[in-house]
């Protein structure tokens, strides 16, 4: 068990000296140990008890217990309170202990990860938690970074290293970090061990993209920036090893600082319950006061004269004081209206529901072997009330796998999959993918189904060859060949990787590059192109080009880019081709694919020379270098010849569009918050059907200033208003009550709108004076996509909706960048089975597929909510029915706080006689089968509108309870007033009365639970019948001779059960009470079922909705996207890699050497054979005169 020290004064600045633990220890920086657990073995009992007694209810019962020890007040034995209290405390403690145990386990798992630390000159394996600030640690490829490190050196040249920051900010493209030059030479351990630089930097903070510090070494100062830092949570990629100096550790790391504070989440039902308990408490005090006044009056009028037979207690000298004591006595006996077992029962039910979630086979992911997991057991019913879902994109909606899906080459589209009968094949019924075995360099994981493309390549169609040649040349991918033929691409964005891999499989293998050359294996033949220029990508250009000189000396420019940009820059002769390609592009876009247009242009030698000259000048320019370069690039990327287009599938998680459609039908609004770029996000919005072309308009807010953003939002609103006219501006966000009205107003807006907002605009939109405007606009839209948002902004958006909408929010994500959002939302869901576990650790629920969300909400959530509501209604009812009898009895016993029941009955009523049936209902009840709740998502609505348990329902339950208690008292009263037994002896003795009332009460509440139970499993039968049986068994046991003879003063009711229950009159009373209590309820429910079925009779409701629903389903299928054109140029692409390549900075010498080696080497004889065959077809220029095949 790791003990993490916690309290330290806030830091002003941080100093860390490498390899000097003694020095660093002076500052007592946090160690790299993280602690999310709350207790350890020693502190568990006191801390847990302390926490539990912070619960008002528990303290209240403790207080009652103390009251009961005062003899003048004690109207009940102490055990009637202590037994349930101990039971409750124990159950809660056991649960807390289990929870904490698992937290310990996961903490330990993280803390005990191994890392290599340089200690006294030797690399030693150390657990993460033992890493200290100032240590130098070694990271290897694909390892998680253990703490926030200053990069010292790496295996790559120039101290570069690549990291993936998905865990941290959700961006999946790789990033480059570079060590400062002086340290990048410290490659080997001996040098590192002598390194004694001192870093002075900012104190720990949560800004992921900022770092400022200074390294003092050898009397020199070196500025440090974020570019030199490796943050905890990142993964090292494509870098064999690197060394880093620990700057921030454990809780001080930016990752942990960013993870937000852990809030104890309560469900809205919890809060409502607390309010209600307070009300009940007030009610209790009122009753106590009424009865105390009654007592004072009674003692004054009657009691004082009745002293002949019943003198006052010694301490009591006046009726007033007696009334005062009686108040406390009544507080004790009426305490059961504040149900002590309520909280623990609720916990038990939630635990049961959590287990059902864990056990659900339909939420088990076979592929990743991960079941769904309810990590907290306190939020289940809120899953049935979700109105807003905030979803991360990468890793949640998408798998973050890019797949080369389709392409259009010279007017012909490839990539459609046909089944045997020639129809377009749906997923799952695909034939075998095509066989790439001819190509020994092919990537085995690449799959493609359309054989005609391979045929075209094999036949030697020049356009196809040129197409793939472009793909193999025009990119910034780095290759690595560890063994001959084992190629690894280090793509900066997965899109590029997918394209280059596609080219590789179709026989255009990008093999290696040097700053000046690119070596490609074209159909088995190694060809080295001279790389003349890389016209790098940027956000404005939305394209990239390379200029290469082929082996024949011809210079050609290859360009790939967004369709909108590229299609305008084509040579007019492409007109016809452009039309067909545009059709294809539209088709691809309609399928939700990311498209790129490819084009080339032949350059004359002279022109190029002249252009290169200008480019050089532009690049050397002092001012506005960027602009100048851009215009130079612009000039050459013109009049290009269209080659075709590619379509890349950003592979969605399974079932995402269906899930989103279903959740939308369930009236849940889905907002996508992503760190990705706008284009990517919008693209995914389309492919998962959040955005459709049927939408009236998609508003895009990209303003950089407050005014711009405000203006854009205002315009969007105006447009929506205009089109609907009916809408005033009376959105009200204040009360929950009006939310139903609000929804209707929103629905009244004609047309569907979507809002896309950028991170920097969002920053303005979230400011206090604009947040309402933003929310108003966003909520009027069907779909909202926020892109480029920081983790903090994600949380702010969630917070905003929470604050004004009073709706239940759910956040789902997979990365560390989602942690704050997950923690902020009412419910946080983590996608498990991915590499990172931060999101899962912070989440309340986790599973491995986004699509399980529908089951979690529509099935488990809905049931949980239903069950919890039914449970609460019944629970309050039964306790009021039980307790209020004392109140009525008070008027007939001189307000003396005499209980109606036997004290054992009071002790056991809540924990034995009536607990299990209602628990069984709370755990197992179902109204409609699970398939139905998926078929008819509208069934989810009562939860969102909070219809099943609210203050109104509560009052109905209470009223029913009071009604029952009145009958429960006055019917036996009426009967017993004058009645005698059938042998003439007295019937109306106190004990018989107690047994009669208790028995009718148990029977009435059992019948009532039977009425409430909608799903009678064997367990329900067992518990309901069992409870009745147990009641009678205990009754007879308690009233037996044996117990009386052992403890005459404790079991005074001896012989009572057999005497009382043998009387027909008693049974007539019980039957009468039962029927009078139950029949009105039956009548009421029946009438409600008949008159207002849509509220209660979900089954009927289901029937009604069915027809509508089917039509909607059909609609959903049809919705595709046509007519819009979007390009998804590898938008996770980053600028600057072209430069890096051309400078050769990121290439290590060995790879330069290797590239020349590979050109020379010929592989197997098969390849040689192939090369001969394809040689004639592979020349790029000679393609035009060959007829296209097919």
């Amino acid at each position, binding site marked *: 068990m790791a003990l993490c020290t916690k309290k330290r004064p806030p830091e002003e600045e941080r100093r860390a000296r490498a390899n000097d633990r003694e020095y660093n220890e002076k500052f007592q920086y946090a160690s790299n140990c993280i602690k999310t657990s709350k207790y350890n073995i020693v502190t568990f009992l006191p801390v847990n008890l302390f926490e539990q007694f912070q619960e008002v209810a528990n303290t209240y019962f403790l207080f009652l217990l103390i009251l009961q020890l005062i003899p003048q007040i004690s109207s009940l034995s102490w055990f009637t309170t202590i037994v349930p209290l101990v039971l409750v405390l124990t159950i809660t403690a056991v649960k807390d202990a289990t929870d904490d145990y698992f937290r310990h386990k996961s903490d330990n798992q993280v803390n005990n990860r191994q890392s290599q630390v340089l200690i006294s000159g030797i690399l030693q394996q150390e657990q993460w938690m033992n890493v200290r600030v100032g240590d130098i640690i070694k990271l290897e490829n694909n390892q998680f970074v253990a703490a926030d490190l200053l990069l010292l050196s790496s295996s790559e040249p120039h101290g570069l290293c690549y990291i993936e920051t998905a865990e941290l900010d959700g961006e999946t493209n790789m990033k480059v970090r570079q060590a400062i030059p002086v340290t990048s030479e410290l490659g080997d351990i001996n040098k590192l061990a002598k390194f004694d630089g001192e870093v002075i930097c900012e104190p720990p903070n949560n800004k992921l993209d900022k770092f400022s510090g200074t390294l003092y070494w050898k009397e020199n100062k070196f500025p440090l920036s974020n570019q030199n830092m490796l943050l905890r949570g990142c993964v090292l990629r494509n870098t064999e090893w690197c060394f880093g100096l620990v700057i921030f550790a454990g809780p001080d790391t930016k990752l942990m600082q960013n993870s937000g504070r852990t809030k104890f989440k309560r469900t809205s039902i919890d809060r409502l319950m607390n309010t209600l308990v307070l009300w009940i408490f007030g009610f209790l005090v009122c009753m106590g006061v009424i009865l105390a006044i009654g007592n004072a009056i009674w003692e004054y009028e009657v009691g004082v004269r009745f002293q002949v037979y019943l003198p006052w207690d010694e301490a009591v000298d006046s009726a007033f004081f007696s009334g005062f004591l009686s108040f406390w006595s009544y507080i004790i006996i009426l305490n059961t209206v504040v149900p002590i077992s309520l909280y623990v029962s609720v916990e038990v039910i939630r635990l049961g529901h959590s287990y059902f979630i864990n056990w659900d086979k339909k939420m088990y992911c076979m592929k990743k072997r991960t079941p769904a997991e309810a990590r907290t057991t306190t939020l289940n019913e809120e899953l049935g009330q979700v109105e807003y879902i905030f979803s991360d994109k990468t890793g949640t909606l998408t798998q973050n796998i890019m797949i080369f899906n389709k392409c259009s080459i010279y007017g012909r589209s490839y990539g459609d999959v046909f089944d045997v009968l020639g129809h377009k094949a749906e997923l799952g019924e695909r034939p075998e993918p095509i066989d790439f075995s001819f190509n020994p360099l092919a990537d085995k994981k690449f799959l493609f189904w359309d054989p005609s493309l391979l045929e075209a390549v094999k036949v030697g169609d020049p356009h196809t060859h040129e197409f793939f040649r472009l793909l193999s040349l025009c990119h910034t991918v780095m290759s690595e060949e560890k063994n001959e033929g084992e190629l690894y691409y280090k793509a900066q964005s997965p899109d590029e990787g997918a394209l280059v891999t596609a080219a590789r499989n179709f026989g255009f293998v990008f093999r290696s590059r040097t700053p000046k050359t690119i070596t490609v294996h074209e159909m088995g033949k190694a060809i080295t192109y001279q790389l003349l220029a890389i016209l790098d990508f940027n956000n404005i250009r939305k394209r990239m080009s390379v200029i290469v000189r082929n082996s024949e000396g011809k210079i050609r420019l290859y360009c790939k880019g967004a369709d909108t940009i590229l299609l305008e820059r084509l040579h007019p002769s492409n007109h016809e081709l452009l039309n067909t390609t545009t059709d294809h592009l539209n088709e691809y876009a309609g399928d939700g694919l990311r498209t790129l247009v490819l084009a080339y242009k032949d350059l004359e030698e002279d022109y190029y020379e002249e252009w290169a000259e200008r480019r050089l000048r532009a690049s050397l320019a002092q001012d506005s270098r960027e602009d100048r370069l851009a215009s130079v690039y612009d000039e050459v990327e013109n009049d290009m010849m269209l080659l075709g287009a590619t379509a890349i599938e950003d592979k969605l998680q399974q079932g995402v569009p269906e899930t989103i459609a279903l959740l939308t039908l369930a009236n849940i609004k889905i907002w996508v918050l992503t760190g990705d770029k706008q284009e990517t996000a919008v693209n995914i919005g389309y492919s998962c059907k959040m955005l459709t072309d049927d939408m009236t308009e998609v508003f895009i807010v990209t303003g950089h200033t407050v005014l711009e953003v405000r203006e854009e939002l205002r315009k969007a609103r105006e447009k929506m208003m205009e089109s609907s006219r009916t809408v005033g501006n009376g959105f009200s966000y204040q009360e929950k009550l009006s939310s139903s009205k609000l929804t209707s107003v929103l629905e009244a807006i004609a047309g569907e709108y979507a809002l896309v907002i950028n991170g920097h605009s969002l920053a303005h939109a979230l400011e206090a004076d604009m947040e309402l405007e933003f929310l108003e606009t966003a909520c009027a839209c069907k779909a909202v996509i926020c892109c480029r948002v920081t983790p903090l902004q994600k949380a702010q958006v969630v917070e905003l909706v929470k604050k004004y909408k009073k709706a239940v929010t759910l956040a789902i994500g997979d990365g560390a960048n989602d942690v704050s959002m997950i923690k902020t939302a009412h419910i946080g869901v983590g996608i498990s089975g991915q590499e990172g576990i931060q999101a899962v650790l912070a989440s309340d629920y986790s599973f491995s597929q986004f699509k399980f969300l529908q089951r979690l909400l529509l099935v488990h959530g809905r049931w949980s909510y239903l069950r919890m509501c039914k449970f609460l209604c019944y629970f309050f009812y039964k306790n009021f029915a039980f307790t209020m009898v004392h109140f009525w009895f008070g008027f*007939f016993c001189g307000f003396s706080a005499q209980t109606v029941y036997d004290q054992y009955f009071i002790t056991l009523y809540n924990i034995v006689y009536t607990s299990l049936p209602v628990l069984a209902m709370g755990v197992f009840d179902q109204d409609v089968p699970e398939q139905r709740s998926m078929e008819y998502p509208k069934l989810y609505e009562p939860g969102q509108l909070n219809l099943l348990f609210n203050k109104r329902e509560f009052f109905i339950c209470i009223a029913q309870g009071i009604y029952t208690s009145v009958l429960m008292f006055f019917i036996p009263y009426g009967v017993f007033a004058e009645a005698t037994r*059938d042998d003439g002896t007295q019937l109306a003795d106190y004990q018989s009365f107690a047994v009669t009332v208790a028995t009718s009460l148990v029977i009435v509440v059992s019948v009532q639970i039977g009425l409430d139970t909608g799903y009678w499993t064997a367990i329900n039968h067992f518990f309901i019948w069992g409870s009745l049986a147990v009641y009678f068994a205990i009754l007879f046991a308690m009233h037996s001779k044996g117990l009386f003879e052992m403890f005459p003063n404790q079991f005074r009711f001896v012989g009572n059960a057999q005497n009382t229950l043998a009387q027909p009159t008693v049974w007539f009373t019980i039957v009468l009470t039962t029927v009078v209590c139950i029949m009105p309820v039956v009548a009421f429910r029946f009438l409600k079922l008949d008159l207002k079925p849509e509220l209660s009779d979900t089954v009927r409701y289901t029937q009604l909705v069915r027809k509508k629903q089917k039509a909607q389903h059909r609609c959903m299928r049809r919705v595709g996207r046509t007519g819009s054109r979007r390009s998804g140029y590898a938008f996770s692409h980053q600028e600057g890699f072209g430069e890096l390549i051309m400078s050769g900075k990121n290439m290590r010498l060995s790879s330069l050497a290797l590239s020349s080696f590979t050109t020379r080497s010929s592989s197997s004889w098969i390849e040689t054979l192939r090369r001969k065959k394809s040689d004639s077809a592979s020349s790029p220029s000679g393609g035009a005169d060959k007829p296209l095949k097919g």
Partner: protein
Amino acid sequence: MAWSATSPGANQPDNTAFTQQRLPAWQPLLSAGITLPLFFCVGLAFIGLGLGLYYSSNGIKEIEYDYTGEPGIGNCTACARVGERVAPPHPNCTCQWCFSLPELFQGPVFLYYELSNFYQNNRRYVVSRDDEQLSGLASALRHPANECAPYQRTPTGLPIAPCGAIANSLFNDSFKLLYQRQPNGPYDEVPLDRTGIAWWTDYHVKFHNPAPINGSLKLAFHGTAKPPNWPRPVYDLSPDPNNTGFVNQDFVVWMRTAALPTFRKLYARIRHVNYSAGLPRGTYCVNITYNYPVLAFGGQKRIIFSSISWMGGKNPFLGIAYLTFGSLCIITGFVMLIVYIRYQDENGDGDEDE
């Protein structure tokens, strides 16, 4: 336990009906087919039962007399006045109540006394007893429970047996029934059977005398004091050795405290051979030994002759309640039927689906 995803081997959830929430279940619905017949059946059954209860209750005869002795009412005013002035134990005072029966009072006949406004159900009263003592435990005899206070010990420190307010307030009026067969004829005493008026379990299980010492109950109670209100100690309650001490029937009946401030307790049965059919017509007088003051707190005392039926004593409430509720059920049933039919007309489709 599939609690943690990290525990190996436990990953795959079990495919059982229980874990997958597919347990076979009965899903009842409040359909018209069940509800309407239910209401009519319950209604009819209740009306039937109600009639039966009502008539059997009506068949029971009761004669009662309030002998509290409120000023100006009845014959016991003088006795009541005496009792008020003097602290207990009270001097004997008798009064008489005479009534005539025009016809046979169908037997078996029970004689009850009824107290009103007497709070035997007051919490402090109810707890003021020691069942250990009453069950004959020797230790409890000497050390009465604290709940008995202030009737736990005498001012001199002697333990009171039986202790507590209930015992102390034992009802001690006594009644003697005289029968005058002919007008102006002699009064015969009607024998009152005062055995078996307590519950069998109380008499045999709950209450026991302490073990007699040398065959004498008096010695067993040696060292205890009588309750202050009592005229004589507990072992002298009755000359009958089976009916004295803690197992005195009157005492046992009294100790079974009443639920409500108005209660009646059985005093005696009339089942002597001559009166086995009931009380024959004629004039009767009850000689009341008036010891028990109730006027001070506004209490009332009654004496009641009553017969019983299979369902106990006179109890009009049950019958009327059953009749009322039965009728309500039928009416509700009709209302529901009308609603149901109208609803069906409007909607057309059936109700019995699902």
